[in-house]
């Protein structure tokens, strides 16, 4: 029962059987001008109705002569395709195409008239920028590819498409610049994508669980971006991008630990400012992980390290607090995490209220009630702020989690606990690989050639080559610009 029948009545029956209980399926029997009977199927809501009326029904009903071959049917739709089995008809219908059957022909004509509801292109929420572009990806794969093509009109940009998900059948598009990217990388990614056997992949985030090299590790191993310019910047550095239909984020790999601290905006600022911001982010990284843990260890074990006056003011502020520092810290850290989550889930104006209630009322009241000390409030607030400086959301969330084991270790073993935890974290980072690239590159393994664009950002005309951390096969990024130092380009 898989092949189409020559009889229109049979086809109609099969369709009704196959799509029973689908009231949104439109089955439109009509006669061509030559009185040949025909049938048009589509799902209401997934198609562009104007196009169906004007480009399909009108020409067929008012002018079509007898049709012998479907590919010659007088429809004015851009892209058409003939198929001969029901599986493909089904897939086409569900992806917003409409299907034409004509009596006497055992084939069907698929017409690409998709027009489902979609969101307008808007500014990305999680990666806002000051000077960069303000376009963000949307939920339609083709749109996202078009956005990338707008930035990268080059014939070397290749697209490999895969269908993943037995039930949902999402289209994944792997984009790469074929003359820059190392071929192994594409092969490896292809292998991983094709080995996925699931019902449905609804978002890019779900996909990472299947693609990660180290699924049990806390650190993110793929970067996701909502911005076409960021995706293109990654492509130009020799990475690959994966556009997942239904998802407004694009997966980028292979990434390293330090690449999570770079943003596209860095390149639109002047280089000294950008370098300062880069350095600030790494300071924020250290504060996020180490500040609460160090405070706990200093108070609980090594108070002799602190100068006497500082110790006095800390002691004064802690005088009324009945808890050891670790409980104090956990109370505050957990309440700030809850506030963050609450502010995120609530609609905008209510979210702000939560911020005020949490920040002022709980913070101030807790100090006055003697549950926590002022200094702990400062430490926790500083930690929270620095974790928000880290530009990548996944990385920031992971680091926020990592500081809890650090705090526990510090409360048990003081500075030694912190050092041991740090060594374990660094060991995991250094032993990880993503898509065949060491996660710790270019710090360990060391590659000084890449250091121009990590902790600081050198002027762009000095970044003559692509980063080596992506194993790109073609390294040349630009020729010699600004010869002789002073004048403009070669002037």
């Amino acid at each position, binding site marked *: 029962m898989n092949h189409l029948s020559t009889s229109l009545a049979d086809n109609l029956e099969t369709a009704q059987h196959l799509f029973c209980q689908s009231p949104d399926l439109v089955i439109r029997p009509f006669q061509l001008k030559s009185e040949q009977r025909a049938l048009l199927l589509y799902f209401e809501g997934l198609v562009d109705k104007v196009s169906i009326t004007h480009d399909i029904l009108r020409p067929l009903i008012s002018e079509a002569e007898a049709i012998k071959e479907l590919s010659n049917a007088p429809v004015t739709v851009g892209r058409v395709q003939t198929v001969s089995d029901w599986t493909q008809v089904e897939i086409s219908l569900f992806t917003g195409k409409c299907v034409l059957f004509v009596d006497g022909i055992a084939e069907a004509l698929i017409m690409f008239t998709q027009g489902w509801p979609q969101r307008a292109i808007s500014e990305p929420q999680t990666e806002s920028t000051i000077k960069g572009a303000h376009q963000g990806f949307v939920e339609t794969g083709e749109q996202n590819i078009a956005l990338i093509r707008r930035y990268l009109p080059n014939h070397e940009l290749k697209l490999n498409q895969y269908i993943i998900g037995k039930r949902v059948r999402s289209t994944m598009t792997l984009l790469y610049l074929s003359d820059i990217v190392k071929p192994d990388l594409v092969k490896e990614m292809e292998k991983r994508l094709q080995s996925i056997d699931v019902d449905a992949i609804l978002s890019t985030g779900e996909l990472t669980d299947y693609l990660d090299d180290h699924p049990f590790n806390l650190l993110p191993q793929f970067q996701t971006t909502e911005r076409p310019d960021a995706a293109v910047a990654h492509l130009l550095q020799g990475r690959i991008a994966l556009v997942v239909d239904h998802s407004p984020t694009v997966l980028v790999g292979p990434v390293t630990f330090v690449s999570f601290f770079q943003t596209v905006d860095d390149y639109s600022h002047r280089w000294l400012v950008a370098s300062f911001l880069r350095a600030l982010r790494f300071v924020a990284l250290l504060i996020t992980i180490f500040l609460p843990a160090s405070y706990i260890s200093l108070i609980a074990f090594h108070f002799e390290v602190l100068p006497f006056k500082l110790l006095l003011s800390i002691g004064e502020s802690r005088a009324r607090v009945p808890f050891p520092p670790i409980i104090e810290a956990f109370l505050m850290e957990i309440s700030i995490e809850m506030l963050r989550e609450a502010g995120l889930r609530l609609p905008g104006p209510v979210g702000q209220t939560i911020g005020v209630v949490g920040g002022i009322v709980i913070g101030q009241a807790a100090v006055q009630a003697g549950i926590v000390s002022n200094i702990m409030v400062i430490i926790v607030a500083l930690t929270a702020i620095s974790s928000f400086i880290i530009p990548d959301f996944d990385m920031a969330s992971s680091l926020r989690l990592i500081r809890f084991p650090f705090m526990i270790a510090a409360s048990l073993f003081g*500075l*030694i606990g912190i050092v041991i935890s740090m060594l*374990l974290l660094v*060991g995991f980072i250094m032993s990880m690989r993503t898509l065949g690239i060491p996660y710790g590159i270019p710090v*360990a393994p060391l590659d000084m050639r890449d250091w121009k664009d990590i902790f600081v950002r050198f002027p762009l005309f000095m970044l003559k080559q692509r980063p080596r951390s992506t194993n790109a096969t073609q390294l040349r990024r630009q020729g010699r610009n600004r010869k002789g130092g002073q004048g403009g380009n070669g002037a």
Partner: protein
Amino acid sequence: MRRPLSPEDHKISFTQFVFTIYKTQIGIGILTLPRDLVETTGTDGWISLLIGYAIAVTVSILIIAAMSKYPNDTLYELLPRLFGAWIGGGLSLLWIGYAAGGSLVMLLWSIHLTQVWVLPAISSPTLMFLFVLPICLYTFHGLKLVGRFGEFVYLISFWMPLSLFWGLKDAHWLNFLPIGHNGWVNIILAVKTTLLSFLGFELAFILYPYLTEKKRAIQGVVFANTLALITYSIATVISFLQFSEETLKEYVWPSLVLLKLIRLPFVERFEIIFVALYLVILFATIVPYLYMAAMGANRLLRTKNHRYYTIAFLAGCVVLSVLFRPSFWQLQWMGRQYGKAGFLLAFLFPVFLWLWGIGYRFIRKERHP
């Protein structure tokens, strides 16, 4: 247990080669070196240091020269090849014992150091258990991770010798004069102390076959030894400038006493933080030695995975720390025994190996021209 490591997991780059050797050389020795030198030769110790450096460089180059004839052999393949299965196996065992002993002594010293300077109240088994965790992680992943660890440690610790410069605030340059006032004999005698500080270059025995740029191996060992010399010179010269000979003899950890001079507006006792961070450097000594031992045991017993031996050794260390808590004098005795072994195996053995290799090839050429 995960898959055995493939040769690809061991390839190390030139910088990894240099920093792994350098960071293995810098260990507990630098913390006590100024006093050890002063005891024998007073403030002329820097001359002994230079002589020690020259000898260490020579021996390192001999190691590379001996290894370069068999570029794919580690020490544990080279020994059976040159000495036959039985003697070679015996020598391998000696080296395994030396490397394992070295890491055990270092572990015990690290625990002692931590208890003296950072956490007096903590028990040795707890500390041993904590220390074993990262060491286990780093040793598990083969030479690649050992090399990366060397690089990482270099990057996060290069400020440490520089922080000693704080001690220059009120330096007494006259401390050095007159040069040679303790007699040249004493200077030569002190060379032995300095030689032991350079121990660590014998890692070239296992690193060399995995080095990607073999031509730069000699350059690499010279670099590593020079970096070690610079670090030691900073520590000794600044100690000599700061303290008189008599004061210096009273300090057990003179380099750390130097750090006591550092007073920052927000940190009063900087040396506590310093010692906690210094553990990282000590681990960078323990890990390569432990790997050297585990790898040797793996080769000797013809098994596929060095991880069993690592776990066995580290578990043994934890058990040992429960049963036996060494005193400072016992630790010093162990250090001296390790030094003797190091002198024999790391300094005399390479010379012997090099000569033996030349003779061996000469005789084989005679027999099979």
